[in-house]
């Protein structure tokens, strides 16, 4: 059962081959047996999950129409509000906060679509990190090799899917926090267009850059869950999409007629040998033209870095005045440094962003989809301080976002697709499938093409 994708479960529930409660029990058993090794979950909500699963089974028993994700178990990064659960956002300082009075909007939408919420997941404190080495709740361990990081900040979201605990999870991505764990854990991840999905009911990190999205073991699951979460939300000022643009029906349309390129320059310089090998495999399978130049990638990363530090630091300044000692040791000094940054740095970065967006959008007049590695290297051992990247020693933790930050700064939708450059027994590494703003359909379609030919895959670890 754990080998099933989410939509396999939905089909089995729909046909009567399996009950939603049975699917849930398999997931709970898997979590109970494996999570001591992976530390992906921080909170379970199994009683609620049982109620939701039984409601689906009751619908079927009454021969009523089933919603599109009926019986699909999933979990969320613990910055999503879950009614009755305190939203920790990976921190200790929020532990005294009252439980959330309502679900985050995306959780509400998944519930309406019939999905079954199983629990909340480990993450870097307040999403400020790429490794999920959380000092309060313990490091999340990569199911592909438990001595290594799962990536972050949505590390639990990547690990739980790779481990077969649930077929679907939700994460957030400010600078790469869905794509990095997807790459390192060997699962698919979708970071939609900035402004596509409502962020209401989640604990923010950087309002100018925060995105939410799904991680899964198949592109079909990404598309199905993404479609269910779409919709306008006038109460999230950053939610710009005014209607739903479904993608699921089109994911098998293939790549005929699409102009596909592979990024060079900055994205080559900052990619290690395995990242380059993965990109080569994807580019060959898709007949992509090589060496396409993404405009001002280094400047985009610099500006994203500065905006992240300023907004993140400012958000936490009140708590940093009184409770800095309770913050994550790996990020507290960065939060404080960000709060002290001169305003000119921040304003310049936001002014630059306007020009950057125009240059990136112009690139997509010539291309439908662009490819780039998702991370410079595969998962490193937990505790790694530095790594070697093409002959240079670089700090390991921030460098995991080198290749994702310039892309999300432009707001483009991206699917991270997992490749296995050392074969099925090696470690995975992701390739970013990038499309123009609002063209998630194209990114999903091309990622599905990679999956269909077996170049990208996300097997359950240990089976």
């Amino acid at each position: 059962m754990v080998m099933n994708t989410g939509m396999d479960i939905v089909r089995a529930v729909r046909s009567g081959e399996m009950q939603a409660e049975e699917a849930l029990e398999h997931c709970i058993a898997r979590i109970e047996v494996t999570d001591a090794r992976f530390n992906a979950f921080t909170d379970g909500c199994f009683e609620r999950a049982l109620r939701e699963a039984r409601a689906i089974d009751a619908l079927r028993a009454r021969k009523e129409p089933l919603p599109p994700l009926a019986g699909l178990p999933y979990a969320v990064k613990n910055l999503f509000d879950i009614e009755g659960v305190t939203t920790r956002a990976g921190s200790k300082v929020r532990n005294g906060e009252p439980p959330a009075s309502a679900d985050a909007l995306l959780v509400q939408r998944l519930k309406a679509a019939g999905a079954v919420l199983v629990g909340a997941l480990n993450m870097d404190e307040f999403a400020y990190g790429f490794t999920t080495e959380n000092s309060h709740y313990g490091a999340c361990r990569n199911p592909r090799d438990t001595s290594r990081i799962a990536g972050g900040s949505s590390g639990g979201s990547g690990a739980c899917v790779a481990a077969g605990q649930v077929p679907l999870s939700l994460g957030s991505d400010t600078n790469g926090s869905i794509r990095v764990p997807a790459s390192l854990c060997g699962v698919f991840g979708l970071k939609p267009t900035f402004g596509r999905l409502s962020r209401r009911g989640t604990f923010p990190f950087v309002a100018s850059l925060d995105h939410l999205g799904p991680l899964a073991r198949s592109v079909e699951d990404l598309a199905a869950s993404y479609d269910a979460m779409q919709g306008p939300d006038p109460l999230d000022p950053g939610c710009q999409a005014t209607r739903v643009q479904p993608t699921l029906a089109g994911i098998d349309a293939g790549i005929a007629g699409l102009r596909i390129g592979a990024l060079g320059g900055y994205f080559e310089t900052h990619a290690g040998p395995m990242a380059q090998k993965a990109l080569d495999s994807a580019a060959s399978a898709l007949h992509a033209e090589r060496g396409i130049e993404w405009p001002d990638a280094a400047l985009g990363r610099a500006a994203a870095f500065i905006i992240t530090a300023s907004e993140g630091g400012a958000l936490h300044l009140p708590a940093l005045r009184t409770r800095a000692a309770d913050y994550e040791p790996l990020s507290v000094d960065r939060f404080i440094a960000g709060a002290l940054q001169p305003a000119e740095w921040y304003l310049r970065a936001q002014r630059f962003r306007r020009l950057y967006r125009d240059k990136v959008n112009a690139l997509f007049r010539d291309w439908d989809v662009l490819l780039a590695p998702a991370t410079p290297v595969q998962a490193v051992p937990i505790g790694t301080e530095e790594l070697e990247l093409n002959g240079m020693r670089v700090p390991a933790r921030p460098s995991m976002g080198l290749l994702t930050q310039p892309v999300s700064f432009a707001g483009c939708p991206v699917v991270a697709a997992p490749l296995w450059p050392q074969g099925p027994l090696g470690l995975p590494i992701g390739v970013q499938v990038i499309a123009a703003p609002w063209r998630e359909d194209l990114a999903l379609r091309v990622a599905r093409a990679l999956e269909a030919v077996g170049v990208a895959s996300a097997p359950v670890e240990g089976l």
Partner: protein
Amino acid sequence: MSDVIAYVRSSAQLLDLTLDDAQVERVALHLARTRGIAAVLANTPLAPADELAEIFRPAPFPAEDAAWS
């Protein structure tokens, strides 16, 4: 580096942040790194008319689905 340390001390004081000497050193190290990053951006020409990105929108949300395929 001493200028960054002095900056950290004074700006932290302005913002009512109490930092001990070790914290000041660590924060200054981060800020000095960010200064290097900001310097790259500072060399990028911006005209007075180049305003801030509004509540960021990557592109106008399409009014029609004609191009949707």
